């Protein structure tokens, strides 16, 4: 039997030591009427067979190596240096568990401490945890943290309508039993000024995304104005950010954010059909005792040597039980390790270079598309790597044509989340998109141009 080393002789010796005759005798506590059901599962396979079968199954899908991908909307294709997977694939990292025993877990603990350090550097914050399940759950935990900071008396969270729709939905799922109201995102015209105006003494936090779901950037000056208004109400400002953008643009810590969260997947983690990802979470040090999740701190051992341990565990479920700040046990340690290796491999200059590549290529694509008759780039804000194209034809039909005839994943259909933007196509361009492929997209879009310039999409 695979992975079970016991031989028949071992089993016989072990049963004799236990004092029973058969393995079945060990299960006498299980009610007889439900004991030993037949499971209808496919027959077991050898490794050779499963490798062949699943290789074939994996090839049924059209993967991003065989398409040009301009689809982002919360999951991004970025370059991952080879060292990342090589290092996180060491069994000493990935077959260990949560570092409960620090004497034999310094590798994981120091790697998390370094990850926290780099997330603080990136966001301009003073503390970071070891990560959450993904960007959406990090946003939900930020709402709960703000709720706890406000001693559970402030019962309102204000969400920007330009916060990722999934982040807003997950925050609602998480808080449905807490008596909180999440408002502000029902009106697309709620910009930062309007969000500031909604803030009052009952508000726990205001959450905005920068760059927002449509890729638009908000200046440090206007964010600082929002932060001042939010703080004036005694609430916290939560900013969700694209970590790659922070290689280039001002960190939220510079403009008054209290909590900075985001989807950490772009940092060295494959796009992997939506997971596993990691949510990064950083905050001002004064809020750290209200934060959920693992946090690693520096300390010394009995001989005064530097070491690392899980810190502030009195916040956590295994100590506080029903009074814990969250039920979360784990982080996404291996994904955070990948993010740490990625950030160190890129370093100070490399991450900026990645961000600049995204910026230049996205602007090239937007400028070329803007030249096409029938197309328009929405808004006049600066943007990072995503932008909205207003299209002359129904977006779903255009996307189908791009895929079927050009093998291009053209972007995200905004009408799925914003009925007001049903002619909007969210296009994402990263360092992975070559000029040649961008030109192909432009050429394909040109074919689809305005009703008078091109043919109707059937």
């Amino acid at each position, binding site marked *: 039997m695979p992975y079970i080393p016991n031989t028949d002789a071992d089993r016989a010796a072990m049963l004799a030591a236990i004092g029973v005759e058969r393995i079945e005798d060990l299960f006498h506590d299980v009610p007889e009427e439900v004991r030993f059901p037949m499971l209808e599962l496919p027959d077991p396979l050898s490794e050779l067979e499963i490798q062949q079968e*699943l290789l074939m199954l994996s090839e049924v899908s059209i993967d991003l190596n065989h398409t040009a991908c301009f689809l982002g909307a919360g999951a991004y294709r970025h370059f991952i240096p080879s060292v990342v997977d090589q290092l996180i694939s060491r069994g000493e990292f990935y077959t260990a568990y949560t570092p409960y025993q620090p004497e034999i877990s310094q590798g994981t603990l120091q790697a998390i401490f370094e990850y926290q350090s780099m997330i603080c550097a990136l966001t301009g914050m003073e503390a970071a945890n070891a990560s959450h399940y993904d960007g959406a759950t990090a946003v939900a935990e930020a709402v709960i943290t703000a709720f706890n900071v406000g001693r559970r008396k402030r019962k309102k969270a204000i969400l920007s309508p330009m916060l990722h729709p999934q982040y807003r939905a997950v925050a609602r799922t998480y808080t449905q039993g807490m008596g909180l109201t999440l408002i502000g995102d029902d009106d697309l015209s709620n910009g930062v000024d309007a969000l500031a105006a909604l803030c009052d003494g009952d508000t726990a936090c205001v959450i905005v995304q920068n760059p927002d779901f449509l890729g638009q950037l908000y200046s440090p000056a206007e964010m600082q104005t929002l932060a001042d208004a939010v703080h004036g109400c005694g609430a916290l400002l939560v900013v969700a950010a694209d970590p790659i953008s922070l290689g280039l643009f001002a960190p939220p810590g510079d403009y008054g954010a209290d909590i900075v969260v985001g989807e950490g997947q772009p940092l060295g983690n494959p796009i992997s059909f939506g*997971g596993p990802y990691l949510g990064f979470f950083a905050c001002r040090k004064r809020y750290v005792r209200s934060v959920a999740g693992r946090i690693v701190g520096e300390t010394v051992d009995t001989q005064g040597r530097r070491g690392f341990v899980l810190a502030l565990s009195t916040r956590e479920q295994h100590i506080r039980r029903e009074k814990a700040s969250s039920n979360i046990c784990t982080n996404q340690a291996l994904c955070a390790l990948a993010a740490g290796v990625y950030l*160190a491999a890129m370093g100070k200059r490399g991450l900026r270079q990645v961000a600049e590549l995204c910026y230049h290529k996205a602007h090239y694509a937007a400028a070329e598309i803007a030249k096409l008759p029938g197309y328009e780039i929405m808004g006049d804000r600066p943007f990072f790597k995503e932008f909205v194209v207003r299209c002359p034809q129904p977006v779903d039909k255009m996307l189908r044509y791009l895929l079927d005839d050009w093998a291009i994943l053209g972007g995200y259909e905004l009408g799925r989340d914003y009925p007001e933007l049903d002619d909007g196509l969210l296009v994402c361009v990263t360092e992975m998109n070559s000029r040649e492929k961008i030109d192909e997209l432009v050429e394909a879009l040109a074919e689809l141009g305005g009703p008078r310039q091109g043919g109707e999409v059937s």
Partner: protein
Amino acid sequence: MTEPLLYEISSPGRRGCRLPQPDVQREELPAGFLRDDLPLPEVSEMDLVRHYVHLSQLNHAVDTGFYPLGSCTMKYNPRVNEAISHLPGFTQLHPLQPPDTVQGALVLLYELQEFLGEISGFPGISLQPAAGAHGEMTGVLIMRKALYDRGETQRNVILVPDSAHGTNPATTTMSGLKVVQIASDAAGNVDLDALRVHLSDQVVGLMLTNPNTLGLFDEQVLEVTRLVHEAGGLVYGDGANLNAMLGICKPADLGFDVMHFNLHKTFGTPHGGGGPGAGPVGVTAELATFLPGPIVVEQEDEESPFLTWHVPEKSIGPVKSFYGNFGVLVRAYTYIRMLGAEGLRRVAENAVLNANYLLSRIRGVYPLPYDRTCMHEFVVEGRIEGAPDVRALDISKRLMDYGFHPPTNYFPLIVPEALMIEPTETESKETLDAFAEALLKIAEEAREDPELLHNAPHTTPLGRLDEVRASHPKTMRLCYTQEC
């Protein structure tokens, strides 16, 4: 043995990765939006590799040695699962691609839903939750919403046995419900009288781990679930200990209404140093409409078989982005296909055999508060006759000197000085014997030279660490950079 921090080996101008120049014209960067400095380390690729290889060498892991951490099921992580999960047809899929372009992935997810349904007896499965605690929250929110949907909005209490994992009460609070603790009886089962006292029309349900955290199968479980149902409540099954139940019984047959699976425990996916795991949730047919989605379904109006996404009608809402920890789900799928029904039953049998054998080797030396046939794990007291100053913590630390990861200690809370030991089915008799010998030797050492234990570990990279210092406001240091 310590390793310098990345920031300490950083030198201005070093690079760990080279990137291409832009192949398009450079666009002017927006003035006033940019950051001044980015304080990340600067290291060469080789320094980076050595740094993380050195760090890895400071870890104990399943790959380096026995890891009997109770309730965590630290079994071997098959390498084929890694190989399959790295196939580009799985890693290079965008979650928002049209369903017809990702049928390979959807087939895998659909079949995994079916497999988990067959193993557990639950017809409704959502693969979305990312971890056990995440699955628990999902399950409790489903129970709450289902009862509220019936109009029973007065129900606001969750019953939790005193042996429960801390996530159970923490989850209850997160879901806006109150916790009432239920005592265990002398045999380690749920105390039926205590349960009856607390059952009422205020109760949403009971959260029960079975086998429980003592490693014992509740002998009255059918009566427990019947009583909760009779009071109009639902029963949540914490699937942490499903490794003992594969092919032994289906949790749905015991009267559970909801259960989460820990794929990183039961189905051999790696723990990753603390994640990513996966915590899918199974429910009865009646509760399936409340599951978080999207889940994979067959499209009915298509001629050829076609799979697509579906969000259940009364869903509690999504609990994370997209569909779950797909890379982990691929590994668990591979594991189930490698083992089949017979293999899974052998997993449970040998996990239980190994635990009972190990228990038989140390019985009489370490006090056993509930002396019954155990399931896949058991709990002894870390107290040794003739060594009154020695505690479970000392025994745990001393085990490291013998090359073993300690058991879970000080849990469950109802056993003083608890040592919770879970050997798993992937360990050999020789390993179990060596571990038992170490525990017996440590008991001798405790009587003869207790200081040896108090000062342990002696052979690890570092000695015991000052945990108070790490959390004290004056000495707390949570990151390297200056501001922290």
